[in-house]
């Protein structure tokens, strides 16, 4: 084979070009710690990488949703505790009032306290979380219960859903009527309180004894709603834990697809550096030598 100077040039430049391309590639991987910089680096991997990024962003939002849901439910839980306390106190008072030994004027005092308890219940019914009424379904801007006639106030039955994973939403809100009974119905808590007040004022002891059972009925309903709230809280807490686990595994997966293997990158880069140095040295050495150096 005839070798000319231009051939040596072309060969050297070609080798330098190839070596430098390899070096810049690995250098970029090493400097950023990432394996995929553009779709062409791994057309299949890039899809996964983008998916994991989206999922992580999305899952963070689901976590936020779960936190919001938990905030709501914890407040509701607190309210159920208070409702239960109110009902317990009311039962004690009604029991006290229903015995014949209690003097009539004492019943008046009891009536005053029952009135206070009723107002307490209205307050609970009107409780809010971050500026939104808890027990009025979707009409979060409207106070569900009035002080004057809460027994006949209708609450909205719309449900407030939060997404906790793709295609899975969990209901959060509970309508006031589910807790305190349907508007105007015989077992509506406010109506029961109104009637207890009337019975106290009229000293109707038999009816007061029956009222104790009605209070028990109210407690049962509150307890079942409370249990429902507890179940939802558990669900959100489980979801939250799962989301946190998921975030870890998603980040792990993303790292597996998208991160450069540092050890490999360093070794590859060093290897290519050596080759580059060798090719530079060879070029410098060969190009210096010519027949001209040896003829006088």
């Amino acid at each position, binding site marked *: *084979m*005839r*070798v*000319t*100077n*231009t*051939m040596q040039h*072309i*060969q050297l430049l*070609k080798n330098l070009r190839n070596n430098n391309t390899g070096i810049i590639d690995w250098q970029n991987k090493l400097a950023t710690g990432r394996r*995929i*910089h*553009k*779709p*062409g*680096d*791994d*057309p*299949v991997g*890039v*899809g996964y*990488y*983008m*998916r994991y*990024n*989206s999922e992580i*962003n*999305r899952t*963070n*939002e*689901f976590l*936020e*949703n779960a936190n*919001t849901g938990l905030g709501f439910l914890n407040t509701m839980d607190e309210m159920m505790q208070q409702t239960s306390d109110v009902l317990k106190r009311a039962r004690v008072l009604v029991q006290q009032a229903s015995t014949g030994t209690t003097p009539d004027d004492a019943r008046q005092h009891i009536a005053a306290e029952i009135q206070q308890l009723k107002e307490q219940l209205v307050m609970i019914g009107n409780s809010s979380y*971050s500026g*939104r009424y808890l027990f*009025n*379904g*979707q*009409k*979060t*801007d*409207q106070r569900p219960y009035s002080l004057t006639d809460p027994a006949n106030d209708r609450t*909205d039955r*719309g*449900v*407030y*859903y*939060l*997404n906790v994973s*793709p*295609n899975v*939403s969990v209901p959060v809100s509970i309508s006031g009527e589910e807790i305190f009974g349907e508007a105007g119905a015989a077992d509506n808590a406010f109506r029961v309180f109104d009637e207890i007040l009337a019975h106290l004022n009229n000293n109707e002891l038999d009816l007061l004894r029956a009222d104790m059972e009605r209070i028990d009925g109210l407690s049962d309903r509150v307890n079942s709603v409370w249990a429902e709230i507890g179940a939802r809280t558990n669900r959100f807490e489980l979801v939250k834990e799962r989301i946190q686990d998921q975030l870890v595994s998603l980040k792990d997966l993303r790292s597996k697809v*998208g991160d450069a293997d540092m050890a490999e990158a360093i070794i590859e880069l060093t290897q290519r550096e050596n080759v580059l140095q060798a090719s530079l040295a060879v070029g410098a050495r060969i190009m210096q030598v*010519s*027949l*001209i150096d040896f*003829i006088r």
Partner: protein
Amino acid sequence: MRSTFHGLETSKRAILTQHTALLTVGHNIANAATEGYSRQRVNLSATRPIEAPGMQSSVAPGQLGTGVQYDSIERLRDSYLDLQYRRENASLNMWLVRNSTLDSIVALINEPSESGLRSVMDKFWNSLEVLNRDPGLLSARIDLVGAAVNLTDTLNALETGLQALESDIQQSINRKVNQANVLIENIANLHTLIRRTEAMGNNANDFRDQRDLLVDQLSSIIDIQVIETPEGDYSIVAGGVTVVANDAFTPLTADSVTTAAGGELAGYRYSLEEITYIRNQLNAMVNTLVNGEITVRLENGYMTSSDMVALNEVRLADGTIIPAGQTIPAGSEIVTPVEFRVNGFNGLHRLGYALTDGRTDIPFFTTSDGSGTFTLGNIRVNAEIRNNTNLVAASGKYEIVGTDRVAIRGNSDIAHALTGLRDKVFQFPANLTSLSSGTIDDYFRALVGDLGTRSNNALRQAGNLQNVTDAVNMRRQEVSGVSLDEEMAEMLRFQHAYNAAARNMTTVDEMLDRIINNMGLVGR
């Protein structure tokens, strides 16, 4: 009968011929680094010996040599390698242009990154979750509108980028056509010079080198076919059109882009196709998101404001049961889960009611040109919504207060359904990507993966062709390139021959001196 001065004449011829050979060595060395130069060789041959056969010839034995002459100076070149080089070079340049355009598109799409379209879309979908968390919250609405404007701005910027790329390519096409025309004109002009030179029986080596170099350069721009007949007729067909016929030439026009099968011009044609392709894909994604037909389910029911048809059996608040496919009158409150067929994001948003005045049928996205088809360039967030975030219709129910319609503030049924669109499987136009149905996110990922495959392919093709072209070029240099070592050796050879011829002349001179000046002087 030989002449007295025969020896002098022989040496003179040798000196002159070796001189020529040395001059040619010098020419080669001078052009060792000249692009397109082919090394030249002086073809030496012995001159006619004496005596020529004939009746008058002497009876002296043997034939006496008369020295050396050169017949021609020729260049060493393999036209088959030229053919190969030009073919590969045209392909190489086509793929280089295509690769660089794909690189630009990849840079424009900017994936995977934390500032590309994917991340902007993530933010948009996430802000819908925020709205669903608290539909009455002003900051949630501002956040959503901000994210949506960010999304449309990003899409618009992609279109602007693609357009800039296209106009750059158009300009490059014009520039390349002009450059090709200058080359074509020069090739035709050189033909005249070569013709004239070779008519005199000489080889037009340097002119031919120049012409070959110009043809090489032309092969970068467009695929060419060179036809040279033994009679010296020379023509070039570029992109199927004869552009050079001897000294006549036909300039290329911008239309040559459509006929070019190789070279940068073909690369530009493919580049424009790549841009159109990616634009069509992105347009399909945008239009499908905004307009694509989809079935949505509203778990909490819905309050109709006009006559509607549901896909399932529904119960109204007053207990009426309306079977699937039958008209639900305006103003009915549906209390069971209801399914509707709607046209994409806009169609679903049109179902919703605005926060304050209960307005409905508000498109979330609008087009800047009023067209019904959404594209990268024309998609905008409805200006009304931008100016008044209360018009984000998150609610699916309203109530009548007095005579006014008022949306239920805490109702986020529509916002909730909008967040669900992210997981809905849409139908996409066929033949654009490997994906004909999938979520919007899936489609974008498929599109990016697809782009990656094509840019990878272009990079590999360009790399392979670079190697092939380099290899052919190496072979060409092997045949035609100047080797300085070789020229040095030749130089020594001719120098020695020259010196020896001069010495020979001196010897003949001394011989004649002896005869003329010193002979017949016996005893003097």
